[in-house]
């Protein structure tokens, strides 16, 4: 008691403020993840998962099985699922960038008085249910839905079939196309907001300088605006790409047999096959898959900060 009294009051407050969230995170974030790691190297017994470490006759036995990981690398299913997760997340990111960059650009150059309203209109869909926004596309892209009708009418479906985004002209739902549309739709605000934040801070005098030096608006855009907004492009792309990789709801509602994504594989491993160790292994590999682009991003950010 005397010891703690000698310490100043703020010290005790500090311990509490740091200690409580710290303990909570270790208990409910770190510990569960370590359990997943442990599960991923154990084997499925008849009823339950076998323990990695068993004590029999006073001897500690360690039974670590790499078989799950071997299986992931040898079985086509997982390999393809990881690959298509990255592929569709990548396509979605590009679509969001294509729609979002001009959008954010013109938003940032709109009259200052209407910018807060535009910003609110971009954020509003973000507050409404993610699930419902995905679900909305089910009705639109179903055979007879007005978007599907319209696209078929314009002949867009034949173009999509030619690029492999749909299999048969006229059927749009449960194809790679519907998956990408759904993910682009739900993640577009994540692309627009960082880009807008970046572009609206840009010093417009630089463009005037470029014009004075004889650059056409188009050249000035590519040589000045785009390089200056690089940080926004990268941030927005990360915000779209990373959640898309592990996405489950959109592939389940809008994807089809062609679009096996890793989140769905994990879900099925767990809920349909009841293979917990396998689901855990899939999860561990998925974490690695996400950590890599994140590490690159962090490195880039650190470098950008150093340069400043």
């Amino acid at each position, binding site marked *: 008691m005397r010891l703690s009294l000698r310490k100043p009051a703020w010290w005790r*407050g500090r311990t509490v403020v*740091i200690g409580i969230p*710290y303990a909570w995170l270790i208990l409910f974030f770190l510990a569960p993840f370590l359990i997943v790691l442990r599960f991923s190297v154990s084997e499925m017994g008849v009823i339950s998962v076998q323990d990695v470490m068993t004590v029999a006759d006073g001897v500690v036995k360690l039974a670590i099985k790499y078989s799950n990981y071997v299986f992931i690398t040898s079985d086509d299913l997982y390999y393809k699922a990881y690959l298509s997760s990255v592929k569709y997340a990548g396509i979605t990111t590009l679509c969001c960038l294509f729609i979002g960059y001009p959008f954010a650009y013109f938003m940032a150059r709109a009259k200052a008085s209407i910018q807060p309203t535009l910003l609110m209109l971009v954020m509003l869909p973000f507050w*409404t*249910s993610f699930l419902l926004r995905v679900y*909305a596309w089910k*009705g639109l892209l179903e055979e007879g839905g007005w978007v599907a009708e319209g696209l078929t009418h314009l002949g867009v479906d034949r173009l999509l079939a030619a690029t492999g985004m749909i299999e048969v002209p006229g059927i749009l739902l449960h194809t790679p196309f519907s998956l990408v549309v759904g993910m682009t739709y739900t993640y577009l605000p994540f692309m627009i907001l960082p880009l807008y934040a970046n572009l609206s801070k840009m010093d417009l005098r630089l463009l005037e300088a470029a014009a004075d030096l004889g650059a056409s608006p188009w050249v000035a855009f590519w040589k000045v605006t785009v390089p200056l907004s690089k940080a926004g492009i990268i941030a927005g792309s990360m915000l779209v790409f990373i959640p898309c990789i592990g996405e489950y709801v959109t592939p389940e509602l809008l994807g089809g047999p062609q679009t096996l994504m890793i989140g769905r594989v994990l879900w099925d491993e767990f809920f349909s096959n009841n293979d917990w160790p396998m*689901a855990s292994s899939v999860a561990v590999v998925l974490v690695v898959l996400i950590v890599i682009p994140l590490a690159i991003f962090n490195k880039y950010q650190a470098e950008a900060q150093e340069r400043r």
Partner: protein
Amino acid sequence: MSTHRVMFGPGFAKLFGRWWLVGGFLFLYLPMLTLVVYSFNKSPLPTVWGGFTLDWYAKLAGDTEILNGLWLSIKIAFMSACFSVVLGTMAAFALVKYKRFKGRTFFSGMVNAPLVMPEVIQGLSLLLMLVAVQRWIGFPERGMMTILLGHMMMGLSYAAVVIAARLQEVNPQLEEAAMDLGAKPWQVFTLVTLPMISQALASAWLLTFSLSLDDVVVSAFLSGPGSTTMPLVIFSRARLGVSPSVNAVATVIIVVVAVCVTIASILVARAERRRAAEISAAQRDDS
């Protein structure tokens, strides 16, 4: 605006920009609007318009599965949001105010990790732990409490990020001044810091509330028999195809959210203006 002319050249680019914005907003809003319109459709088929009706709303009022799910979701979201804001404030405080303590990098990593961790992994890992704990001490059963735990886990990170962003802007001299005038740390926090970050607390609360109210994946892993939240009900129906009952629920949710967000943003804008006025008034007094 001269800058406009420098950038676009007259006419075309400006027109192009306006249409791109209009097109973008149509893309963002038309799907939701279609949901709303079809919730009044007499035909249960999503592609045929069979005339106007309010039948689906009448049916919704008697749909106990959805109503029970809604009540459960609101209870969970409320508790999760309150908890997330309290713990999120602590975590944000630790990250912003205490630049040096043991394992700080590790701590900030853990605060941020749930933001990028796919929900399937969060749900799986928490479930595996809860199962292990349950086998060990026979507690807790899967149900409302376990879903709540999962949502609090996610909410903490989002709340911490929102609050930390605001906390970083707070001028530390104000807190130091209060300290110099003899305020105790707790008084400094409640009288000086808290009022300044109150807006961030409110938006963190709303964010975590709506995240919890919307969550499918973590809830699916952590729910037990008899604890089906509203998104789980909607999801299981949506999986089977387009259903008018979901359209009706969607419309109710969209309207409630739109009204709440509009009111909240008007209030925020007003508070901001008042604060700006007070600050400029105070500065005028100074000089």
